[in-house]
């Protein structure tokens, strides 16, 4: 097994030095930025003074979370083709953002998602649902990032989980609290540049030996015995009749990760429509001055994000070939360590200076990634709490001094930041992968239909927004709660019993193979024995862990709903909610405001005035 905590003891100082350098740079940026934050517009949107190119990098920095950088490279290294399908969805999502979301939102909104909804509808009601949805989506996403970040930092540099979560939280709070959107933007830009640079260097080193030929590179992947063994493990019995070459080629074909076609389409829908409803992404369009700049920033973001996701193909397959799927999975079952381990390998391996320098650099980038994404999420939640709920609803828009608004924003940031640290620590050891999917599902099912229809549909009104938000959110969360994503103790225990029942027969067969005169057979038997011991230990642990429980968190023995991703049902339901709600509850003001909304979203009249407030 490769070193448990990534970096060896002798080289830990390299990691700390690289981390310290990255943190120092971002702190200087925050210090400079802090002096410029005087008004709410500065705090929430950097005063609208971000250029299109800067915003493009910042969108990439906001969007390329640890899940996409580490998670996708890992999925490709463990499951081949299917992992790469995620990459495609993440880029395709931006076409929706570019065509129908970015420009109207820039022209209609000011600081938050709820601003867009409140423009023509009842401001209080729509601010409440918009803010609650923003906080819900951001909290799901935030929890996943905090838990993932804690585990990652623990694995990479060996400090304990709670310290990692608190460290991420405090650093993020320092950026947002003092520097607001100005510092957050620059931290995201720095992180995106580092991430792209690190990926390019690794991919160059991995690909150069093949003269930058795609078929030559992939030919080496499919002929790798480590990859072939991985495919054989994944396929199980059907693999027995396949040749080594067929097994290797199978790694480049779909179906190793996604088993249910509808699930895959459902995930695609959540990605393609959910991105356009993520509050922290929408918020980025308020940091530029005009709709034209918003459009240009999405195009830049698409170049950067798309370029990065093409690189994941090489990161993932390179890691599968050079590090090996079994080694990657042994450090982290989800494959999250694939990219860092690949960096270490191509730098010269576990015992070399350059190997550890590369690992330290990639680790620092991963850390910066988590902090930057978390900062964007906290800022989105804090703006919903301070600008929409406190200033807009509770104070009825009567906090008018710049100092008062900034103070409200900072207090909200502290509350959300403290909550995120507490949730991160409380959720230790939980399966949080489902939360990122849930954030996208709620964004696609509730936020996206509401934002889209309020700027494009004449009859849309307050009733539609409130109904759509409620139905979309309830459908996405409800279907996830009864889906196979949760742990079902009865099924877990049944599987454990099955392993234990089969143990004696398997052990007998392995023992016999161990005495075989053929060294290859004996070596395989030793490996099988270790795997069997591990499976038995896990089965016993599961039986103890779930001893007193028969049902899932929701009190179910088995999933009520077979899909892991609710999008295919919850997104149409969200749209239906807005349609029915609008038709059932008439709202004259919303209809009278239509001409203003539609003209403004198209020609952006007086947008600069509306930015300045």
């Amino acid at each position, binding site marked *: 097994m490769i070193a448990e905590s990534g970096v060896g003891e002798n080289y830990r100082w390299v990691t700390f030095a690289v981390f310290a350098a990255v943190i120092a740079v971002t702190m200087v940026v925050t210090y*400079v*930025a802090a002096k*410029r*934050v005087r008004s709410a*517009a*500065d705090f929430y949107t*950097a*005063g*609208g*003074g971000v*250029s*299109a190119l800067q915003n493009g990098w910042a969108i990439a920095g906001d969007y390329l979370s640890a899940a996409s950088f580490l998670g996708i490279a890992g999925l490709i290294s463990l499951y081949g083709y299917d992992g*790469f*399908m995620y990459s*495609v969805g993440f*880029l*395709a999502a931006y*076409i929706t953002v*570019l*065509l129908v979301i970015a420009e109207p939102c820039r022209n209609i909104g000011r600081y938050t998602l709820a601003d867009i909804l409140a423009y023509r509808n009842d401001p209080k009601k729509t601010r409440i649902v918009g803010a609650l949805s923003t906080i819900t989506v951001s909290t799901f996403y935030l929890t996943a990032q905090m838990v993932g970040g804690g585990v990652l930092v623990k694995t990479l540099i060996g400090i304990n989980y709670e310290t990692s979560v608190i460290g991420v939280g405090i650093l993020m709070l320092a950026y947002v609290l003092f520097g607001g959107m*100005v510092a957050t933007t*620059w931290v995201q830009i720095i992180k995106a540049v580092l991430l792209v640079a690190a990926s390019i260097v690794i991919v160059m080193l991995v690909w150069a030996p093949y003269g930058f030929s*795609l*078929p030559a590179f*992939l030919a080496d992947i*499919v002929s790798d015995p480590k990859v072939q063994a991985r495919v054989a493990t994944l396929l199980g019995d059907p693999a027995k009749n396949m040749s080594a070459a067929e097994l290797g*080629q199978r790694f*480049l*074909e*779909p179906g190793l990760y*996604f088993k249910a*076609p509808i699930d*895959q*389409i459902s*995930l695609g829908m959540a990605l393609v429509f959910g991105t356009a409803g993520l509050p922290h992404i929408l918020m980025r369009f308020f940091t*530029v*001055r*005009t709709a*034209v*700049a918003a*459009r*240009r920033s999405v*195009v830049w973001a*698409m*170049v950067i994000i798309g370029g990065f996701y*093409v690189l994941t193909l090489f990161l993932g397959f390179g890691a599968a070939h050079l590090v090996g799927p079994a080694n990657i999975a042994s450090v982290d079952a989800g494959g999250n360590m694939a990219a860092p381990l690949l960096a270490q390998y191509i730098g010269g391996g576990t015992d070399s200076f350059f190997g550890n320098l590369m690992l330290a650099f990639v680790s620092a980038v991963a850390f910066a990634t988590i902090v930057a994404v978390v900062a964007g999420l906290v800022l989105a939640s804090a703006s919903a709490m301070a600008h929409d709920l406190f200033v807009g609803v509770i104070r009825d828009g009567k906090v008018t001094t*710049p100092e008062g608004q900034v103070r409200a924003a900072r207090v909200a940031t502290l509350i959300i930041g403290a909550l995120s640290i507490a949730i991160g620590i409380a959720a230790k050891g939980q399966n949080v992968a489902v939360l990122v999917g849930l954030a996208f599902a709620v964004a696609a099912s509730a936020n996206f239909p509401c934002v889209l229809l309020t700027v494009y549909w004449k009859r849309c009104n307050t009733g539609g927004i409130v109904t759509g938000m409620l139905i979309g959110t309830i459908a996405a969360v409800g279907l996830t709660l009864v889906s196979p994503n949760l742990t079902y103790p009865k099924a877990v225990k049944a599987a454990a019993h099955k392993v234990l029942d089969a143990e004696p027969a398997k052990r007998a067969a392995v023992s016999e193979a161990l005495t075989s005169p053929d060294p290859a057979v004996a070596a395989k038997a030793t490996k099988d024995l270790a795997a069997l011991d591990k499976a038995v230990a896990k089965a016993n642990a599961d039986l103890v862990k779930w001893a007193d429980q028969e049902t899932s968190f929701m009190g179910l023995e088995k999933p009520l709903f077979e899909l892991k991703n609710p999008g295919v049902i919850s997104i149409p339901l969200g749209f239906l909610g807005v349609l029915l709600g609008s038709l059932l509850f008439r709202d004259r003001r919303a209809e009278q405001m239509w*001409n*203003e909304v*539609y003209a*403004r979203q*198209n*020609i*952006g*009249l*007086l947008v600069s*005035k509306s*930015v*300045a*407030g």
Partner: protein
Amino acid sequence: MANPDAVDWDAIIRDPRFQSLHRRKGTFLWGLMALTVAYYFLLPVGAAYFQDLFKIQVWGVVNVGLLFALSEFVVAWVLALVYSRKASRDFDRMAAEIAAEYGGAPKPNVVLPIGKEVLV
């Protein structure tokens, strides 16, 4: 919020130039959107239901599925470029003309150093 009384929104909507912008932009935008969604979902549908096609090797070990996935990137970039050229050539000019007449043109995209005070 801006002072909406200063602008006659109904007159803008009735203006034939706005109507023409609305028609051209609408057709173009939703057409591209439909194309994007259709092309994107060919990938999960193909991966699920047309695996035999996706497995055909066309360039060494590189198969149709892999090339199709890579083509999604190219198509996304091309669509972004097509839209952004069309918008900056036609729609922006039409919008600016209308805006100039009814309430002053939107401020040009002034690029300030980040964080520079822009409040009035």
